[in-house]
C-alpha cells in the first residue's frame, strides 16, 4: 500500500521548478508509504541516437563509479557521459539498448538498470521519502513531468528493486497504490512469452502486463482496458511516458486519487493534503478520477 504523486507542468517556465514543486507532494505521502520511495522525471529528450540509462549501484554508496565509467568508455565508446549521484548514476550513450543491457548484465551484474529512454531518469531506494529525496536531490530536479511513489510493502519484501516506479521498454514507468490478487498468474502467463521479471512484486506484474500488450502493438489506453479484465484486485495506476501522464482506477475505486489542474500544471496525489501547498491550488480545478476511466495529460 502506498502513496502516489504526479506532476506535469504546462508552463515551460515551471520546468526548472518541477522538483521543488513535487517534493512536498512526495513527502506529504510519507504516512502512506514510510519505507521506500522513488520517482521518474521526464526531461528534455536527448537528440540523435543517444539514450539515458538510470543505474543503481546498490544499498551502499558506490565507490566503484570511476571503474564503471572507464569500463563504459572502453566498451561503449568514448562519447559516454556519467552523471553520478550517491549510489545512482545516469549513463548517456549512443550505443544500442540491447548492447548496453548485455554489457551491464555480463560486465556489471551487481549494478541494477532502473530505466532506459531519451527522456526518463528514474530514482528509487529504500528509506523514508525524506531520506530518499535528500539522497538524490529531488528538490533540484527539472523536467516536464514526474511520477513519484512512497511505499508501504504489503506482500513482498522491502528492497530497492521492489520500490516503485517500475519501467518497461523505453520512456515508460508505472506506480501503483493497491494490491493485485492474481499477480503470480499474470507472471506465469507472461514469462513463457519472453517477458522478463525482476521481482515477485505485484506492481511489476501489472507493469509487465502493459509491457506485453504494448509490445504486441496495443497503445497504452487499449492495454489498460485489457487490464481491467486480466488484472484482478484494487489499484490506482499512474503512468508516465515521454509525453504524457496517464491515470486509471479499478472498478471499485477503493484506493484514493485526486487531481488538481489549472493553466500551469496538472497535479495528482493519493490525498489532497499533499497538493495543498501547490501554487494557486485554491483556484485549480479539483476532481477525483472515475473508476475504469483512463485520464491522459500531454505535456
Amino acid at each position, binding site marked *: 500500500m502506498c502513496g502516489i504523486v504526479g506532476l506535469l507542468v504546462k508552463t515551460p517556465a515551471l520546468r526548472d521548478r518541477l522538483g521543488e514543486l513535487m517534493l512536498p507532494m512526495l513527502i506529504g505521502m510519507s504516512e502512506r508509504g514510510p519505507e521506500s520511495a522513488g520517482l521518474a522525471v521526464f526531461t528534455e529528450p536527448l537528440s540523435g541516437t543517444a539514450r539515458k540509462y538510470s543505474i543503481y549501484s546498490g544499498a551502499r554508496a558506490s565507490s566503484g563509479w570511476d571503474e564503471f565509467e572507464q569500463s563504459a568508455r572502453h566498451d561503449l565508446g568514448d562519447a559516454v557521459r556519467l552523471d553520478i549521484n550517491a549510489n545512482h548514476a545516469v549513463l548517456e550513450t549512443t550505443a544500442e539498448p540491447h548492447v548496453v543491457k548485455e554489457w551491464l548484465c555480463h560486465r556489471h551484474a551487481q549494478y541494477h538498470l532502473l530505466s532506459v529512454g531519451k527522456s526518463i531518469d528514474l530514482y528509487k531506494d529504500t528509506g523514508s521519502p525524506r531520506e530518499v529525496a535528500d539522497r538524490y536531490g529531488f528538490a533540484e530536479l527539472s523536467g516536464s513531468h514526474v511520477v513519484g511513489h512512497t511505499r508501504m510493502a504489503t506482500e513482498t519484501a522491502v528492497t530497492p528493486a521492489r520500490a516503485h516506479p517500475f519501467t518497461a521498454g523505453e520512456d515508460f514507468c508505472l506506480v501503483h497504490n493497491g494490491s493485485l490478487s492474481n499477480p503470480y498468474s499474470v507472471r506465469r502467463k507472461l514469462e513463457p512469452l519472453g517477458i522478463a521479471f525482476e521481482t515477485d512484486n505485484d506492481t511489476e506484474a501489472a507493469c509487465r502486463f502493459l509491457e506485453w500488450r504494448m509490445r504486441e502493438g496495443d497503445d497504452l489506453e487499449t492495454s489498460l482496458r485489457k487490464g481491467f479484465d486480466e488484472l484482478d484486485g484494487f489499484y490506482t495506476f499512474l503512468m508516465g511516458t515521454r509525453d504524457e501522464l496517464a491515470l486509471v482506477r479499478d*472498478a*471499485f*475505486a*477503493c484506493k*484514493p486519487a*485526486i487531481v488538481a489542474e489549472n493553466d500551469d500544471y496538472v497535479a495528482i496525489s493519493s*490525498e*489532497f*493534503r*499533499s*497538493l*495543498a*501547498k501547490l501554487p494557486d491550488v485554491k483556484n485549480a480545478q*479539483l*476532481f*477525483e478520477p*472515475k*473508476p475504469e476511466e483512463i485520464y491522459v495529460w500531454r505535456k
Partner: protein
Amino acid sequence: MAQVTFDLARQPLRELNQYLHQRAGERDLHVRVLNPDGAHSIAAGVDAAMDIDIEGHAGYYAGGMNQHARLTVHGNAGPGVAENMMSGRMHVKGFASVAAGASGNGGLLVIDGDASLRCGISMKGIDIVVAGSVGDFAAFMAQAGVLVVGGDAGDALGDSIYEAVIYVRGRIKSLGADAHEEDMTPRDYEVLGALLDSAGHRYDPRHFRRVASMRTLYHWNADANQEY
C-alpha cells in the same frame, strides 16, 4: 455566541479536537478552522450543538461520529465524511469523496457537489442529500435512512439495500441486487420536499423516483438463486 478560531497551519489537530471534545454538551459556540488543507479527522467525535466552519478542503473522516454539531466544509471532503454520524448536520459545499456518510445513524449530510462511490454505504438512519450525482454502489447495504440524489446515480444503486429509501432525480446507470423502483406516494413527496428544503437544494420533488428493497434477499432460499 462565543467565537473561537483554530489555524491548522499553526496548531496541531489534536489541540482542536481536544478543545471540541471538552465542550461536550455546550451550545452557542462557533468554531472556525482555518487552513484545513486536507487534514484528516477534523472535528471528529464532537458531542455538542455548536457550529463549526472548516474553511477549505477537508481530508478523511471530517466530522466523523458527529453528535449534534452543525459543520460546514467550505470546500471538498475526503473519504468517509460524517462517517457514523449520530445527529447534527454536515454540509459539504464542494464534492465528497468515497463512502460519504458511511454507516451514519442519524443527522443530515448535505453535499452540494457530487459524491463519489459508495455514498451512504451501510447507512443506518442518516439522511443524505446530494445536489449532484453519486458514484457506483451508492446506498450499498443501506439499512435505514434516506438518500436523495439530485443528479444521476452510477452502477449498482442500492445493492443489498434493507429498509433505507433512495430518491433519484436523474438517470440510474444500473440498480443493485434486490433494489427496484417503486411508485412515489404522497408521503414520499412530503419527506423528500422537507429534505430538499433542509438542504437548500431547489429541486421539484415531482421529478424524483423512488428506489427501495424488494426484500427477496431477506431470507436464505435455495430456489431464489441468490449469490451468497
